[in-house]
């Protein structure tokens, strides 16, 4: 009898046969695999094994096979001749930079896009997926990052939304049957979530499980997951991985999109790499390494971020912070930034980096300490900070930094209205000229200053934010995660822009979670740990190891 496992062996031959212990080697090799990951599934708490799911059709054929899938949008070849099979019982990692075509591929699979060219085979039979309904018919379910759950319905009601079992009277529903079926599906994946709990009371991880249960209740055999761990804690991640292994053992195929190397090597049975809409390779984890993978993902662009040359002409002190403490959890913060310097502020997520930035900017209350901008004491709020030439460029560009539906031009001039129009009368012609000059200066690629910001790419949006503050004559820039959600090419441009800024005498305080960025871009850096400055690293001592050394918790 063919099982999912033997099918895989048949397909990949001798190269399979990794044991769970193999992960240990990777951990030792320095791949950052979290310790829990080494624990074999069977030993994890509360695990029940799932009965193998019924396989319809020919089990020797792949569950789904993509052949020569192409999808073109005006000006963009989103998918270019992508082919690969998806086997039952495998976790198939999909890797690539932003814009490599992962999302488009996912949308083709779930029927949101229809491929221009290429064929799909389901158990060896040619199929067409033209709608989400088609995808569901062939057992394909996508777990999106933004959940398709209704917050004020119960878990059970969400699982069977739109597929309620009819009650005795026309139009009514059989609530008891919905509950018992939901319980059965959740039991199948070994979850103990209360089926009567309203979904809004659940955490992200539990909501994800409800999504998975919903997919399985629709007889999904292929689960497509888009960065499912991006919002999960370590324990939650552990549970999710346990569940994925059980699903896999039962013959479900999982297509998993991830940016985290550790996950790719920990979970992946095979890894498919996309770049610029093309498939670069499908590899076994044993055949590759994180470095190799990055190389393949980025292609020639791998050296986009050069380490910046040493900076010698640091000028006046632009920002001086002494003993700053506040109710947001930061205490006794001392730091300074000089004109012409890029200073990093790093530390683990939650160490208080953003809180420091907000406190400096006057956006959060402080209880002690003082902030000095360009030699003058500052005690006001964000509006006053802006007038003093300080710009905070926040992490969530879309929420805090830009008016998305307004034009590029409007966004560029909005912070400088007082300066540009002292008489308080708006002059569209003058605003247009200023915006046009800034678009040219920063090489913002937009068809026109009148185009809405939301249609621009992440990198160009970030440039608009920078342009906005340049127009407002800012001389001290506080960047919070300036490269989040921006692809490698645009990152390089943003950094070039930052170098330009400091060349021209601006000062930059940069918060980043990407240690390599801090090391390559900054002149020196402060490392935070649990709300305090754990240490300062000069350029000579600035390395990823030293940052981690200072930033990690030492119990």
């Amino acid at each position, binding site marked *: 009898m063919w099982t999912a496992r033997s099918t895989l062996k048949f397909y990949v031959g001798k190269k399979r046969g990794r044991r769970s212990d193999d992960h240990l080697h990777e951990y030792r090799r320095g791949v950052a695999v979290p310790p829990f990951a080494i624990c074999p599934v069977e030993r994890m708490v509360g695990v029940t094994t799932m009965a193998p799911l019924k396989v319809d059709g020919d089990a020797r054929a792949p569950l789904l096979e993509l052949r020569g899938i192409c999808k073109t949008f005006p000006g963009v070849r989103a998918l270019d001749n992508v082919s690969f099979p998806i086997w039952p019982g495998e976790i198939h990692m999909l890797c690539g930079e932003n814009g490599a075509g992962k999302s488009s591929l996912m949308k083709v699979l779930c029927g949101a896009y229809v491929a221009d060219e290429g064929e799909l085979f389901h158990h060896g039979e040619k199929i067409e997926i033209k709608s*989400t*309904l088609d995808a569901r018919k062939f057992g394909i379910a996508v777990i999106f990052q933004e*959940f*398709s*759950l*209704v*917050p*004020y*319905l119960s878990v059970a*009601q969400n699982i069977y*939304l*739109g*597929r*309620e079992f009819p*009650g005795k009277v026309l*139009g*009514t*529903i059989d*609530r008891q049957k919905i509950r018992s079926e939901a319980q059965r599906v959740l039991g199948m994946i070994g979850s103990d979530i209360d089926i009567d709990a309203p979904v*809004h009371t659940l955490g992200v991880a539990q909501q994800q499980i409800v999504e998975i249960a919903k997919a399985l209740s629709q007889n999904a055999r292929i689960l497509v997951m888009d960065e499912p761990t991006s919002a999960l804690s370590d324990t939650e991640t552990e549970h999710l991985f346990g569940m994925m292994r059980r699903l896999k053992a039962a013959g479900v195929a999982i297509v998993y999109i991830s940016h985290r190397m550790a996950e790719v090597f920990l979970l992946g049975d095979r890894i498919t790499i996309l770049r610029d809409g093309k498939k670069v390779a499908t590899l076994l984890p044993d055949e590759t390494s994180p470095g190799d993978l990055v190389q393949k993902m980025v292609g020639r662009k791998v050296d986009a971020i050069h380490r910046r040359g040493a900076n010698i002409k640091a000028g006046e002190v632009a920002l001086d912070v002494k003993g700053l403490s506040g109710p947001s959890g930061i205490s006794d913060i001392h730091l300074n930034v000089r004109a012409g310097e890029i200073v990093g502020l790093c530390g683990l997520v939650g160490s208080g980096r953003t809180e420091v930035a907000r406190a400096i900017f006057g956006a959060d209350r402080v209880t002690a300490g003082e902030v000095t901008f360009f030699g003058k004491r500052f005690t006001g709020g964000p509006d006053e900070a802006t007038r003093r030439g300080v710009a905070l460029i926040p992490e969530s560009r879309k929420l805090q930094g830009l008016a998305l539906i307004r034009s590029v031009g409007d966004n560029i001039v909005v912070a400088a209205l007082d300066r540009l129009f002292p008489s308080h009368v708006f002059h569209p012609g003058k605003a247009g000229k200023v915006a046009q000059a800034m678009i040219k200066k920063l090489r913002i690629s937009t068809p026109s200053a009148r185009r809405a910001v939301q249609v621009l790419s992440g990198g160009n949006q970030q440039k608009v934010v920078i342009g906005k503050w340049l127009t407002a004559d800012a001389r001290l820039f506080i960047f919070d995660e300036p490269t989040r959600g921006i692809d490698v090419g645009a990152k390089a441009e943003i950094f070039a822009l930052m170098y330009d800024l400091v060349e021209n005498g601006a000062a930059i305080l940069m918060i980043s979670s990407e240690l390599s960025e801090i090391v390559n871009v900054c002149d020196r850096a402060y490392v935070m740990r649990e709300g305090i400055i754990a240490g300062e690293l000069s350029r000579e001592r600035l390395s990823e190891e030293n940052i981690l050394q200072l930033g990690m918790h030492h119990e």
Partner: protein
Amino acid sequence: MSEGALAQGMSVLGRVPGVAFVLVALIAVFASMSPGFSTAPNLTNILVQSSILLLLALPMTFIIMTEGLDLSIGAVLTLGSVVLAAVALATGSLTVGFIAALAIGLAFGLLNGWLIAWLDIPPFVTTLGTLGVAQGLCLVITDGTSIVGLPSGLQFFYSGYFLGIPFPLVIAAIAYAVMHGILYHTRLGTYVPALGGNREALRHAGVNDRVVLAVIYGIGGLMAGIAALLLTSRISSAHPTAAIGMEFDAIAAVAVGGTQFERGEGWLLGTLLGVITIGVLRNGLNLLAMPSSIQVICVGLLVIVALFFDGMRKAQE
């Protein structure tokens, strides 16, 4: 053990909505200030007076849970009353008049639903527009005056008794039971919080969200038609401004009851409490000889106070 029981008691208390406390407080205040308040006839009177508002507030709860709003419901109720009277006078049949009122209510409700669901016009704007249309039609039909001389049998519907229970209460109880059944035991009701909470999910589940939305607004219009019967019976005539502005009380009752204007959060029992609270407030102020202008101010304050308490509790959580 007793500590656990206490904690459990506290958590039960924590789930009681702000409106319940406000209601109890109001009853205590009015009972101590006016001797006539806590008599059986007056309390019955409060419930009877609240029945029309309940008929509007129940569908309003559904509509607000879909992240919608129906500003036209007071005007549609008035139009229903005017149509009922006019048709009853012309045909001599109350039944035909009532059917006409139901039809005009349903038509306006479905019109609202169509404009909102298919043409994507925001509910606020849509129903503001139909409010104007309905109000204008009232004036056109009545020429600005009251329609009087209706059959005397009409009075039964507001002042009569059925098995010893005031007839409006019977209607209100049936309406509540039906709406409760719809919200919690039918497909349609399941889709109400889904429309407000995650419309995309509903579409992905293969449900025609537009039809559902139109039906919900249609129910609102239909309920306004039923309320028109009680309203016309109450004043034994139809007046072109009889229930103008009643959407204010209806929306206030829903808000006071704890239904949120986003994410599809809401519950029907809260709306019932909200309606009774507003009824108690207006009745108590009446007994204290406060003019209706003061009453409107107090209803406004009530909304703010109730939502303030709910907000405080949410912040604590």
